[in-house]
């Protein structure tokens, strides 16, 4: 691994669609850096699935790889079909918070429950960015968005905690200023089996920050930096206090049979019973 990292090596020469200052650049770059550091010369061992939303465009069509850009919320079901038919390929899902835990929430929970062998990277920008900045299930309470002009009157969902509860093997949450931790987390997750979930809180200066009171992407990163607290510290806080923070870190890992293992073991049992 003497060669210097170049994201271009893994990317098609197509102009990226993201706004200036978008966190998707950081996520894409960090993921590819992790790939490089793991020693992958190309992405031929990977299949990427994504749904609808800005984050779905991180792999599709930009990564020089197989990428299946599916329907809104349905990346995980499509990934289920791919992974079970081809257990030998690494399936990675990219999606936004609306895609993964809004419209696709049920699939996310069930994939974690089944311990489906995929890595899901959820880029949480706390808003529906592509459609212009509507409230999301992850939008902080009282935040102004285009559909909550008086401030959001719903409480946000903690996707990482939900993944832990539903049975994911590996769960972590970072922000786009924690690039090193995020990168190491991706490397660790790619080397594991089962359902792995990394949430990365990401800045959307255009559709979120502007209305939520941040003057630019830099201001948002500053907010991430000042309000990020490790899981251990957050656990000592009151719910009220913790709800104002961005909780980062890794949740305890789990080892249990994965979906590929249980499906293929059952197949073997069925064949033996038949003999």
């Amino acid at each position: 691994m003497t060669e210097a990292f170049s994201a271009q090596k893994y990317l098609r020469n197509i102009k990226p669609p993201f706004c200036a200052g978008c966190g998707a650049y950081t996520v894409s770059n960090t993921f590819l850096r992790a790939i490089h550091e793991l020693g992958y010369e190309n992405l031929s061992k990977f299949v990427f699935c994504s749904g609808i939303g800005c984050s779905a465009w991180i792999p599709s069509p930009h990564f020089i790889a197989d990428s299946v850009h599916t329907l809104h919320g349905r990346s995980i079901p499509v990934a289920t079909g791919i992974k079970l038919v081809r257990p030998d390929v690494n399936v990675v899902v990219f999606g936004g918070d609306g895609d993964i835990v809004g419209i696709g929430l049920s699939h996310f929970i069930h994939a974690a429950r089944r311990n489906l062998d995929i890595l899901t990277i959820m880029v949480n920008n706390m808003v529906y960015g592509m459609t212009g900045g509507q409230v999301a299930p992850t939008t902080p309470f009282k935040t102004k968005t285009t559909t909550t002009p008086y401030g959001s009157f719903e409480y946000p969902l903690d996707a990482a905690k939900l993944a832990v509860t539903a049975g994911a093997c590996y769960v972590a949450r970072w922000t786009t200023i924690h690039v090193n931790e995020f990168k190491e987390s991706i490397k660790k997750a790619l080397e594991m089996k089962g359902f792995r979930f990394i949430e990365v809180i990401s800045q959307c200066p255009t559709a979120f920050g502007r209305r939520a009171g941040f003057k630019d992407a830099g201001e948002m990163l500053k907010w991430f930096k000042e309000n990020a607290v490790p899981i251990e510290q957050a656990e000592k806080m009151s719910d009220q206090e913790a709800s104002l923070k961005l909780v980062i870190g890794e949740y305890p890992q789990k080892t249990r049979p994965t979906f590929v293992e249980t499906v293929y073991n059952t197949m073997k049992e069925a064949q033996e019973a038949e003999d």
Partner: protein
Amino acid sequence: MKENSTANVLFWQGNEACAEAAIAAGCRFFAGYPITPSSEIAEHLAKRLPQLGGISLQMEDELASIGAIVGASWAGAKSMTATSGPGFSLMQEGIGYAFMTETPCVIADVQRAGPSTGQATKCGQGDVMQSRWGTHGDYSAIVLSPNSVQELFTLTIRAFNLAEKYRTPVILLADEITAHMREQVILPPPETLKIINRRKPKAGDKAFFGLEEVPPMPSVGEDLNVVVTGSTHDEYGIRVTADPVIHRRLVERLNNKIRNHTDEIADYESYNVEDCQVGIVSYGCTSRSTYEAAESAQKKGVKTGFIRLRTLWPFPDKVIRKMAETAETIIVPEMNLKQLFYEVERAAQGKSRVTPLNKIGGGELLTPEELLAKILEVKKRHD
């Protein structure tokens, strides 16, 4: 199942015949969600597929079920799902995606009485138009309509063959009556079955979404950098969402690859079409009453003929037009409120008077007597 492999004549339930036909066609991936009256397809495949190295999943809902079969198809497996009206409604987004991404797969819709939850255990034919126009945008559907347990076998195989040949989702539009009925099935020897597999790309092929009417289909995981998207895309799968020419070219090709082959996809049974005063156009369970009614009418001196459609979509206009040249009146019996009727009327181009005969609710089939009465009534009007 071992006894089945040696026997040629079986006594199967319709759903069981559909499941066994899927296996015979090479299906090795099923994903579905329980719903009456289709559940036996899932149950049968849950037992059989693992024995054959295949996978059968019960997903969290129908959205996931169709998503999983699309993923499985891109991974190289022949795949299917089975459902009924309410689930078929949920699957529409995935059917549109399969159409746009040219993903071969089979969706069995075992119709029950709708709308909404309707009468879950009772037969209906109310999904005829949904099977054609259920998802949004300009698309063309291939929809097959079996009327017996035997045809649940043969048409399921055909559904897979058409899906593979045209790289498109195919809908097997069954109904509660034929799916739950038990009948004799004569199994053709496996070596006589014609099984079509998707055309794979040759070395150097890159245009997996164009240039040819039906482009070759790669799988993911073959180091071909396949880009699949439900958004408008060019021949190479790259998303292009504002160019009018690329959109027209793609969507017109996707429609034409089916519409231009209407004659080949059309499949029907006909009787006495050349010499009938009264014609009947029927399909699915309702068509089972046609034979007896037509025979009784003939005995009473009414020149009666029928067309029994096994392909509903693309609609075989020519076949209907031929009947319209001889028949004074065409009766369209349906267990819905005039769904295919208007298609028949359109295809008849005013050459025949087209009259409906409809019955819905309680799973009550149109009886041969009811159909005969209609034939005689029509005849009286002619006289």
